[in-house]
């Protein structure tokens, strides 16, 4: 099982292959479309993340001392970004996540490429992941 840092590095390397915004967006759209289905019953208000133009739902569960995340959005580019976040943070221990610098989105170059409203939504999404992890520490 890879570590949080290793998964981050892998995603960053994959994403760095795309120079043009068009390719980046097409990749995110593809990721969004192929994200594992999120159960409708989990689309409750307490699992909805504020700060997005689009709606985002984030769910989590513990298994063998590790945190796992499931998420969904009605906007596909957001969903693609979510899919990257899940790939990186799912399977990490709460301590690993709590110690993370959460610079991942900025490192991907998405924070500056996406609108401030969107960036704020991403920030709230990562904050929710961090708080969830801190809650288990």
């Amino acid at each position, binding site marked *: 099982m890879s570590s949080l840092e290793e998964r981050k590095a892998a995603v960053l390397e994959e994403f760095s292959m795309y120079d043009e915004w068009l390719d980046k967006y097409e990749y995110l759209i593809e990721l969004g479309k192929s994200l594992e289905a999120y159960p409708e019953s989990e689309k409750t208000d307490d699992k909805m993340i504020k700060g997005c*133009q*689009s709606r985002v739902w984030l769910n989590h569960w513990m298994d063998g001392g590790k945190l796992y995340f499931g998420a969904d959005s009605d906007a596909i580019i957001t969903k693609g970004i979510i899919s990257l976040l899940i790939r990186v943070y799912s399977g990490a221990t709460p301590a690993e996540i709590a110690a993370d610098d959460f610079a991942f989105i900025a490192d991907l170059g998405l924070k500056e490429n996406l609108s401030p409203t969107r960036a704020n939504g991403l920030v709230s999404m990562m904050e929710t992941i961090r708080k969830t992890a801190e809650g288990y520490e």
Partner: protein
Amino acid sequence: MNAKEIRDRFPALQRSVHGRPWVYLDNAATSQRLQAVLDCWMEMNIQKNANIHRAVHTVAVEATEAFEFTRDFVASLLHASREEIVFTSGATASLNLVASCFGEAFIGEGDEILVSEAEHHSNLVPWQMLCARKKAVLKPVRIENSGALLPDTLEKCISERTKIVAISHISNVLGIINPVKDLVAVCHRKGIPVLVDGAQGMVHQAVDVADLDCDFYVFSGHKLFAATGTGVLYGKKKWLDRLPPYMGGGEMIETVRFSGTTYAAAPGRFEAGTQNIASIPTLVPALEFLHTVQQDAETVSEQQAITAYMLDALQSDERIRLYGVPRRTEEKIPLFSFTVTGAHHEDLALILDKMGIAVRSGQMCAEPLMDRFGVTGMLRASFAPYNTMEEAVYFMQSLNKAIKMLV
């Protein structure tokens, strides 16, 4: 004047976004600034910076003259008298002022206030806050599926408890010109005053408050090429004279004693504290330019051609649902809100941004209207006289490309 000649007067339009000429289609949120507005603002700060209405020195007198000339100018443009023009920081501030002061004087428990379903939050939340304070009731007036607000529908909502009606001249989402004169007449027949939110209306119509006969009319400067932080409240003298002050402070007083204070007459009573003295005078060059553009045959026909082209392009695409469908093209301003089957408004806006196009996406400060149409948001393209037909065509081409990427 053609759109290109108009463009030259807006330095902000020179910039590019993501390596492309900037196509700015978010004018209903704010317009770009006219060069003459920037010049006026600089002159106020460099040549005429002193506080108004207080001192006798030369520059204070010049600043006061510039400020008060603006009042005369706005009054004459609206066909009002100067004591009926109150300066504020924007339409939202004007609406809050009326809701608060009218509410204080005339609204009691169980009274009713009518607003349309299509109101911007700024013409809704201040009334809701008032209703909570006074235990009054805010009632929505239904609009048609086409977006039209019908006088008959409004008339049926009026009861003996109705104390004021607040409606937009043109909704910031639907872009349909409401029949304000008829709506006002319906209310006046029952003795009920009407406030008109002209945040979009003032930008696209020659407004004559004497002809409309509305009791209040409000608008912002920043949506019509003037500086940000400028707004106007027109109120009929008979109403302004009866409203209590809004904020306390300088300028709004007549005499102040510890035993009690008496207040200045309108409009001074509503202009407490130092006003936005550098920016309010920019309303003059902005409104002058707007007036010229509205009278200019070439500009008017170009705007109508853009409206006709956009209506046709959006309505002939079965994936697109347009909100605010006029019976006749003349009833629609060049503002188009729509949804696309299978494509989220935010995704579309993000992709269009990469193509250099600025549009608005989301709920557009009109959540009840989004609920009314059963959507979580829309995409909106809103045009100004500096937008060209080429931009409209480029927008539609880009929209089609964006849809292809997503669907």
